């Protein structure tokens, strides 16, 4: 990790939404940081709170009546304490965001050029002609050919990949320092996904911005991220550098994610191992370790004790929130990596006694 000051520091962020059925604990005390020019991947299933945490950083959950606590430090100021007007001046200017579905995220009745120029003019006092020139330039920057003509077209005249390029162009209009990319490739074809990721990497190099990429797709973070945070039920359960996380994951949930993606280099007869069960309710999250109902290795006391995110022994940058003892975890992962099922791994390692 870089020794520089973090650009964004999220500290013990909690976001709750009161609902008719009870309070939804969408984000339940997460801490992470993003360094200039680097990429953080936030990985998790739908409903794990990854989108809500980034929308909160942009101040977009306030009007939904969210109860927010913690701190979000950006450039030395706590975004949670800023007035709506000051927050507006930061949104789309210093911090930008792109979304999952580029078709529904673009206004269907406005020309692409207009949607780009309004992003420029929201923060810069420039003439319409200058903003339009900037819009054409931005479309060129994100690799849309014939941008002078395309700027006068409507979103429905663009293909899915081209629409996402437009979204990226819009987000880059004011050269933000930080870009949140919420599932930027999920709605796209596989070949187009690779193009969009390559584009984001090129733009990051050219513009030097930091990126937080939010996804359920480990392939995407493997491609893009320098660091990875794995979220489960509103909490971060593991965080490490991308290299470290793929080489030596520590959390059973991360193992589950890794084992449930097909790999071309694994033998065909090796079965995929899906994570059993469904993501938990965020209104009544499970007691103790939130993952215990779905964890093949959970012990009786795991439903009482709430694990904290702590450094892994000898790996101060690798944090995990798991009640299994570190040695047991490593033996289990060694078994799983060999292609064994969780049951086989558990049998081989023996009844894991939790660290007291």
């Amino acid at each position, binding site marked *: 990790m870089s020794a520089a000051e973090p650009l964004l520091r999220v500290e013990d962020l909690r976001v709750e939404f009161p609902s008719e059925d009870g309070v939804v604990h969408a984000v339940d005390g997460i801490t992470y940081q993003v360094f200039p020019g680097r990429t953080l991947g936030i990985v998790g299933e739908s409903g794990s709170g990854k989108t809500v945490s980034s929308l909160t950083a942009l101040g977009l959950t306030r009007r939904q009546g969210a109860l927010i606590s913690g701190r979000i430090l950006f450039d030395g100021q706590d975004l949670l304490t800023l007035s709506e007007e000051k927050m507006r001046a*930061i949104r789309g200017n210093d911090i*930008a965001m792109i979304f999952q579905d580029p078709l529904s995220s673009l206004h269907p009745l*406005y020309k692409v050029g207009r949607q780009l120029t309004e*992003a420029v003019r929201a923060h810069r006092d420039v003439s319409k002609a200058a903003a339009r020139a900037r819009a054409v330039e931005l479309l060129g920057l994100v690799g849309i050919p014939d941008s002078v003509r395309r700027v006068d077209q409507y979103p429905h005249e663009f293909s899915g990949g081209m629409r996402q390029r437009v979204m990226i162009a819009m987000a880059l209009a004011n050269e933000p320092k930080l870009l949140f990319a919420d599932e930027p490739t999920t709605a796209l074809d596989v070949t187009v996904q690779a193009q969009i990721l390559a584009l984001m990497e090129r733009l990051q190099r050219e513009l030097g911005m930091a990126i937080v990429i939010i996804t359920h797709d480990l392939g995407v973070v493997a491609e893009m991220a320098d660091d990875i945070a794995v979220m489960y039920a509103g909490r971060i359960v593991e965080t490490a550098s991308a290299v470290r996380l793929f080489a030596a994951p520590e959390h059973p949930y991360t193992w589950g994610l890794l084992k449930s993606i097909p790999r071309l280099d694994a033998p065909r007869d090796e079965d995929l191992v899906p994570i059993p069960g469904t993501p938990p309710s965020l209104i009544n999250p499970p007691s103790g370790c939130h993952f215990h109902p779905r964890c093949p290795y959970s012990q009786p006391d795991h439903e009482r004790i709430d694990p904290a995110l702590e450094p892994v022994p000898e790996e101060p940058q690798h944090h995990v929130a798991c009640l299994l003892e570190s040695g047991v975890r490593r033996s289990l992962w060694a078994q799983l990596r060999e292609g064994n099922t969780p049951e086989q791994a558990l049998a081989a390692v023996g009844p894991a006694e939790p660290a007291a």
Partner: protein
Amino acid sequence: MLRYIIRRLLIGVLILVIVCALTFVFFRVLPTGNPALLRAGRDPQPKLIKEIEGVLGLNKPLIVQFWDYMKQFFLHLNLGYSYYSQESVKALITERLPATLSLTVGAAVLWVLGGLSVGIISALRRHTIVDRLSMGSALLLLSVPEFWLGFVFLLLFANDIGKLKILPGAGSYVGLTYDPWKWFTSLIMPWIVLASGGAAVYARLMRSSLSETMREDYIRTARAKGLRERLVVRQGVRSAVNPIVTLLGLEIGVLLGGAILVETVFNIPGIGVENFKAIQSSDFPVVQGTVLLASAFIIVANIVVDIAYAYLDPRVRYS
């Protein structure tokens, strides 16, 4: 686009012919009274009735009468002559049209602007006292008949019988070219009364439509761009009006129906009153002429709305 418009106009003409035919049949089948009998005076001789029927052409077979009417209409734009005053129906309509146009166009403007702005305010302030009050009054205005509301307004504000004598009452209508100010003031109450029901519908529609579009992803994008809330709302409104504009074409019919009642209550010498009187006295050519005019109005309004819709939604334009 031009081909589309021409096709729509041709269909429109066909619809006019059908409306005409239906009016012809209804008038004969329904027990509205024999116009010849009504004209023959008290205790008439059957011979006289036959004679009058001959003069009016009522003794010919229905299909021949219809054919004659169509021929006159399409070849000479002649709508026939009133059974009573012998006046040309076309002249009658031309004379009465300005009053009805003044009433309906003004009411339509008030209806759309009023309905949309109340709807927007309600959608943005959902579940507040403002929202509840406007939606409550909308429901009230929707439920009351125009003629009742008209009388209430007259009793409250008319300068002859009202509690607050601030506005000209019934029968005060004058032409726009005669005295613009008097024209305007005399129409204030009729406009409000005629527009109220439609405005209430539009307010409720706009409220739900805008509440929906404000939850769209592109609104989130607009906010993420750092647009001022005023501009964000404008984007929502831009999408929310589209489905409502489509309805406007259909609502023109409701407006014309309401105009009959409002013209009657406020004694405005328009086509609605004329139509009402003609129905009462079985003055068939006048009924036919006014119904034709109203249908033409609705057909043209719908074509205009559809064309406008193509301009409002680029996705429709290109498909």
